[in-house]
């Protein structure tokens, strides 16, 4: 099967940011995103998802490298300092390159 390489960008951050981030991601030309509810621990302590202020989300975006870079740069600039947030990028193969 013919497959094509794209980037998978994963962000784990505070649930309160969901609305804002989704708008940012749309604006930065991603074609879609997938969100799951999460909990976890990091530099800003334990976030156990017991109630809203304490819940995380995990956002995945499959996109081309330029978009991934743009989103990563934007998030780093706007949210890294003030929010519990991590971000990582990996390579994935997709079947329909035009879709992402």
């Amino acid at each position: 099967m013919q497959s094509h390489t794209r980037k998978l960008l994963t962000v784990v951050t505070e649930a309160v940011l969901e609305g804002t981030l989704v708008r940012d991601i749309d604006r930065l030309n991603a074609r879609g995103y997938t969100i799951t509810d999460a909990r976890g621990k990091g530099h800003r302590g334990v976030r156990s998802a017991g109630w809203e202020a304490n819940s995380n989300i995990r956002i995945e975006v499959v996109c081309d490298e330029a978009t991934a870079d743009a989103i990563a740069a934007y998030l780093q600039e706007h949210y890294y300092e003030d929010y519990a947030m991590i971000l990582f990028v990996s390579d994935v193969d997709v079947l329909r390159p035009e879709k992402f």
Partner: protein
Amino acid sequence: MIDPIILFFLLGATAGLLRSELRLPAAIYEFVSIVLLLAIGLKGGIELARQPFGSLLPQMLAVVALGFFLSLAAFPVLRYLGRFKRADAASIAAHYGSVSVGTYAVVVAYLGSRQIAFEEHMPLLLVLLEVPAIIVGIVLARGLSRETRWRSVAHEVFLGKSIVLLLGGLLIGWAAGPDGLSSIEPLFFDLFKGILALFLLEMGLITATQVGSLRRYGPFLMAFGIGMPLFSALVGTGLGWVLGLSIGGTAVLATLAASASYIAVPAAMRISVPEANPTLSLAAALGVTFPFNVLFGIPIYHALAVWAHTFAKG
């Protein structure tokens, strides 16, 4: 005799402190909150239907002023005595100028089980008291800068879950009146205290998670978390007395003043003043003030109200 709902709070807190595996699923916590918010709104709405709206205007304005005053009063204490960063002081001040719906529910239950009457339109004042402190908090943190996106702040504040449900409940109660609501009473009114018990169980668990942060941020936050509500309750009692509220109503207003938000304000601050550390305000509001009010504050504020009324008459 201690109210059983308080015992549920203690059960949750104890289980949390002992690191029990007990956890309420987040969906249940939301369900319980939604029912409480709607029930409180509905109860207030029924009463609004009975009163000429105009007669409430002075109270409404007074309560908005109270919200502005309390948050403005808290700020310098936090900034200069507590030496918090500007954003942190502003955010904590906003929490304490606003109100906690959970604490309101507890004072209502407290008065109910002692058969002490109070002005039933209190939920209207509750809604009004939620908002001003948020504005104060943002302005204190940011200044009146042009950059503040007030449109999105307004959206955040007025369309947040708690205000929509309270206000929606108020309007439905007002439109439907007591007879109209009788068919939904079994869920919203008969189960109220049972559901409040579950809510307090979860609040106990949440409170217990704040102990760690408290230990880190130390004695000032603890002192503030007890001193500020006592001060606010004094102001609230005075205002209740000036407005001619009953003993019950005065106690409720004092409790509202004394309570610190942990739903609407944290969400608004997180979006609008992100540089404020949410751990600080939640540790104070949830870790100190909520338990203090629920366990000790409410009886004190009730005593204050009685005292104010006796004093006034004598």
